[in-house]
């Protein structure tokens, strides 16, 4: 494959002259959980898993970093770290998201407000940090950027907290793909709204944006053991989801969903108009769907593990056909599979202990490959031997999760493994061209 390196345009006339141009319509979903505006789905074998990793003091350079792991089983470096790019500071790296053209990854840290932009199109195996956006707090008053959700030509960022009191009342910030600020949107505090934020997810065919709610900096930066003993602080968790008019970016329906509803997943099955979420503190699955009056309603539909033991469901991953859902619970280190054939009555059909602590879970488009990471938050992760930090790859045959590889993030001096995104070597941009003939001849 030609190395497509710099922004030279030498080959473009040739490329355009011979182009039989294919147009991919905007797909309804990424590898099952990303923005429906995201292009370039990886429907075959992914080559890389990018892991947004929290730095640990005294481990490697101690900074947050984007780590590239080779996950192509045919590769000689399968299951190995093949790249890492440090941001040079430690700021509670948490989530990340692709721009709509999948040329860049935006990631951020919860302890501040900086947002890092990585180029993954020039060389998908070796992302490069190309920009740090530093005006989030100044422009919005919000801190703790969490979810990065691609809209056409822009990125909608859900934050968790605010600069003023570091509580949970927060909002969303809209940037264009070049990282220029466009607008802010406050989470609703009237009509039952708590003003809190966590995840967001769009269904363009219904003109709806769903948001969920977690807690603010003052809580998520405290040690978990200390926090759960603070009765007043434990009341400061989100208990709402909001359905927004996407076009107008105005809240339309506030739904009461107690217990900190976190990740939101729309069914990608054409024609479906429902989404699910997991409430962390109550250990419940909730279904969000339209009501008879044209609004939206949330309904508790299943229990995850034993809520009395606070298993703490964290990440969920929906199958591309909407028929099944993976649920990771942090405290007991379990990965559970729910049959979603009837979304009003999900049934757990499988479970496996996949780590002493597990957080994020992602699956390939065909569902046969499942990836799990370990870290929740620096001050919430377990201690001692239970503080495993890893990326684990599994094969799923519909009956059993079988280990395929593991990267020990402590042994590799990387840090705490958190959010994952899938990458492919074919997703190089065509804007850039092979080196000119003279340079090629000199190699």
């Amino acid at each position, binding site marked *: 494959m030609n190395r497509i390196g710099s922004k030279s345009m030498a080959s473009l006339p040739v490329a355009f*002259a011979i*182009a039989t141009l294919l147009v991919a319509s905007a797909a309804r979903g990424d590898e099952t959980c990303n923005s429906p505006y995201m292009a370039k789905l990886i429907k075959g074998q992914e080559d890389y898993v990018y892991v947004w990793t929290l730095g640990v003091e005294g481990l490697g350079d101690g900074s947050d970093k984007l780590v590239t792991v080779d996950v192509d089983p045919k590769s000689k470096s399968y299951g190995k770290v093949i790249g890492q790019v440090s941001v040079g500071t430690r700021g509670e790296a948490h989530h990340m998201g692709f721009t709509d053209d999948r040329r860049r990854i935006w990631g951020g840290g919860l302890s501040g407000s900086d947002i890092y932009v990585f180029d993954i199109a020039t060389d998908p195996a070796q992302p490069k940090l190309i920009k740090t956006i530093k005006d989030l707090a100044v422009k919005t008053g919000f801190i703790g950027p969490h979810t990065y959700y691609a809209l056409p030509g822009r990125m909608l960022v859900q934050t968790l907290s605010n600069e003023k009191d570091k509580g949970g009342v927060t909002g969303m910030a809209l940037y264009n793909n070049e990282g220029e600020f466009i607008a802010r949107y406050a989470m609703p505090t009237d009509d039952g709204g708590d003003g809190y934020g966590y995840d967001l997810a769009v269904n363009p065919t219904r003109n709806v944006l769903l948001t969920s709610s977690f807690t603010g900096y003052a809580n998520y930066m405290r040690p978990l053991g200390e926090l759960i003993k603070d009765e007043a602080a434990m009341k400061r968790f989100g208990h709402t989801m909001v359905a927004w008019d996407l076009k107008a970016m105005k809240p339309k329906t506030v739904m009461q969903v107690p217990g900190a509803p976190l990740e939101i997943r729309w069914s990608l099955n054409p024609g479906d108009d429902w989404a699910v979420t997991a409430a962390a503190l109550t250990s419940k699955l909730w279904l969000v769907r339209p009501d008879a009056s044209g609004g939206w309603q949330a309904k508790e539909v299943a229990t995850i593990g034993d809520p009395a033991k606070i298993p703490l469901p964290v990440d969920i991953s929906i199958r591309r056909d909407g028929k099944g859902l993976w649920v990771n619970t942090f405290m007991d280190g379990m990965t559970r599979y729910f049959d979603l054939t009837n979304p009003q009555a999900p049934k757990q059909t499988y479970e496996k202990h996949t780590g002493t602590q597990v957080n994020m879970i992602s699956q390939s488009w065909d569902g046969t490959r499942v990836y799990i990471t370990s870290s929740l938050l620096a001050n919430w992760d377990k201690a001692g031997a239970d503080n495993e930090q890893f990326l684990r790859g599994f094969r799923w045959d519909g009956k059993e999760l079988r280990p395929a590889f593991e990267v020990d993030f402590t042994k590799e001096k990387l840090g705490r493994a958190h959010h994952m995104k899938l990458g492919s070597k*074919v997703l190089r941009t065509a*804007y850039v061209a092979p080196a000119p003939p003279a340079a090629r001849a000199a190699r």
Partner: protein
Amino acid sequence: MVIPALAALLCLAGPPAAADRAKDPPPMDFVLPEPGTYALQHIMRAPDGPVLTVDGQLANLSRFTRERITLLGFIYTSCTNPQGCPLAYRVFDRLKDEIRATPALKDQVQLVTLSFDPARDTPSVMKRYAGSQLEDEGGLRWFFLTAPSAHELLPLVEGFGQDVQYATDTSTGRPVRQLSHVLKVFLIDRAGDVREIYTSTFLHPRAIIGDIETLLME
């Protein structure tokens, strides 16, 4: 892969036959907000650069994206995917009829179709592609443009964020001589700011008309 000769034949065929096969976007199962009750954000400045008209005249793109509200879409005449360029053509065609039938809009809007493929889509090819759409009926303009070269097209493609990538032969894993892009249509205000970007899931004429009316109320 469609061989170049076939593609060349397709591009001689004038307006895209595939437009008739283009599926409409998913139905809108919702009520759109009333025009003027919401804000369209200033997403970015519309980039500028040299283009060629169907008569081969050199001009800046800004000549066709200012003063009126502009809808701009990238196409290439050999595109055969019904949900790509032909869909954009079909939606523009419908919009043209709706705008011409609305006195308040017809002198306020212009359509721009800009080719991705300057090597193949010469001004004369674009003229054939445009056909009768070039006729200025009822005050609505529809411009069909191409770039003098890929070199000069690149800043426009980059500036609009209209990504193009190589396709890959899945049997060998090697890139093949095909390019792909995601359908986007850009709504540009009279001052030259991009105010909305539509993909195939939101490319509804009614939604676009509502946005145009919203801009006219500013």
